[in-house]
């Protein structure tokens, strides 16, 4: 049976059982939800006004920045055309929420509330506002499980944004640390370097921030340097996360949403 599962044959059984489990997840998540609802409904007009002005100014800043962004994107496209390389298509994102349940403390897995019905697919990357969080390892009707980049069984292809150096970062089991175990001692890498996804491997879209290098140790006699990095994403603090569709997956997303709309029309 275990072997069966390794080849994803048990997915339907898992899906069925997950429906039995769903109420338990809902109940466990309830206090957090309730707490948030209460703070929202009890916050005074004054605090709401303050928050509103703050968000307003932030929004203005963001818009100004995105204006420049559009210009840069156009310029980037022109340059790419000149180089004859393929066009980088914008990625689609969807906001999901973490379900507050805790799984095995030795593995870094989280649950989110968007599922197959929303077009979530296996191996889909998950981000928060600050960087890559992980990838989807299981999606059944009741929930979706995501493996974080710090899970000891997870590796992600990255490159140093300063010089384009490509390598692989693996999880350590600590929530604030990933390692770069495959870089020789003489590599050009420093503390503070930003690691971004390289897009190799086809799971993560290129160019999203992953981690900052925090420590570079050259051990005499060892072939590889010991390099530690800290994920930029707030892995244990974010509640709102983003699911990304890139490349050919955008088409499948469109199909899903289209069939949804047709279904709604049929209902009407």
């Amino acid at each position, binding site marked *: 049976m*275990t072997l069966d*599962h390794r080849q994803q044959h048990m997915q339907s059984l898992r899906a069925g*059982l997950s429906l039995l489990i769903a109420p338990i997840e809902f109940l*466990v998540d309830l206090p957090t939800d309730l707490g948030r609802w209460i703070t929202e409904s009890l916050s005074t007009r004054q605090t709401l006004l303050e928050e509103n002005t703050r968000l307003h100014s932030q929004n203005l800043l963001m818009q100004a920045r995105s204006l420049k962004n559009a210009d840069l994107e156009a310029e980037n496209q022109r340059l790419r055309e000149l180089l004859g390389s393929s066009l980088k298509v914008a990625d689609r994102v969807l906001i999901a929420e973490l379900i507050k349940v805790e799984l095995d*403390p030795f593995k870094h897995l989280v649950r989110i509330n968007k599922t197959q019905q929303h077009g979530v697919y296996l191996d889909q990357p998950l981000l928060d506002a600050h960087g890559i969080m992980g990838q989807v*390892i299981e999606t059944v009707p009741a929930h979706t499980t995501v493996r974080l980049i710090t899970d*000891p069984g997870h590796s992600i292809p990255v490159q140093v944004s300063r010089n384009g150096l490509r390598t692989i970062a693996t999880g350590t089991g600590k929530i604030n640390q990933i390692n770069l175990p495959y870089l020789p001692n003489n590599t050009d890498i420093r503390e503070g370097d930003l690691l971004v996804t390289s897009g190799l491997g086809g799971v993560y879209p290129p160019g999203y921030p992953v981690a900052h290098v925090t420590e570079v140790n050259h051990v005499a006699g060892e072939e590889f340097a010991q390099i530690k990095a800290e994920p930029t994403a707030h892995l244990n603090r974010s509640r709102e996360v983003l699911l990304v569709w890139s490349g050919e997956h955008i088409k499948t997303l469109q199909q899903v949403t289209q069939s949804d709309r047709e279904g709604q029309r049929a209902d009407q």
Partner: protein
Amino acid sequence: MQISNHQGGGLILLSFIVAFMLTVVPLPEFMQFIRPEWSALVLLYWCMALPDRIGVGIGWIVGLLLDVLTGTLLGQHALAMTVIAYLIINLHQRIRIFPLWQQAAIIWMLLNLYQLLLLWFDGITGQPPKGLQFWLPPISGMILWPVVFILLRRLRRHFKVK
């Protein structure tokens, strides 16, 4: 034993639901590693109290649900649960008359076996957890066993679960 003699299935179901909830309820970081295996404790109690009713089969189902709940390999907890359910059913007549602390020691050993089986599966699939923290849940389970035992026994007697 006829079905009509059975009573209080709802309480048994409820106890397992509560155990599942305690398994995934968020805890502060330092307490995550000492979270006992609630479902295993509850299963062990019912196996000991009602061995003709709760046994290997129920253990298997509970384990399977636990696998789905915690996102582990399907069948991993199920196998571990069946093994400890089988052992406790074999031992139940002896364990029932033990004093509580001696019972707790036996439970500790069974929970260690349970944990060992889980470790074995994690090892096969290539992600063995590191560190001795992995062996803390059986100890916390042992410490909590008297609480679980007395609470469930009281409930069982009060609701006349047979």
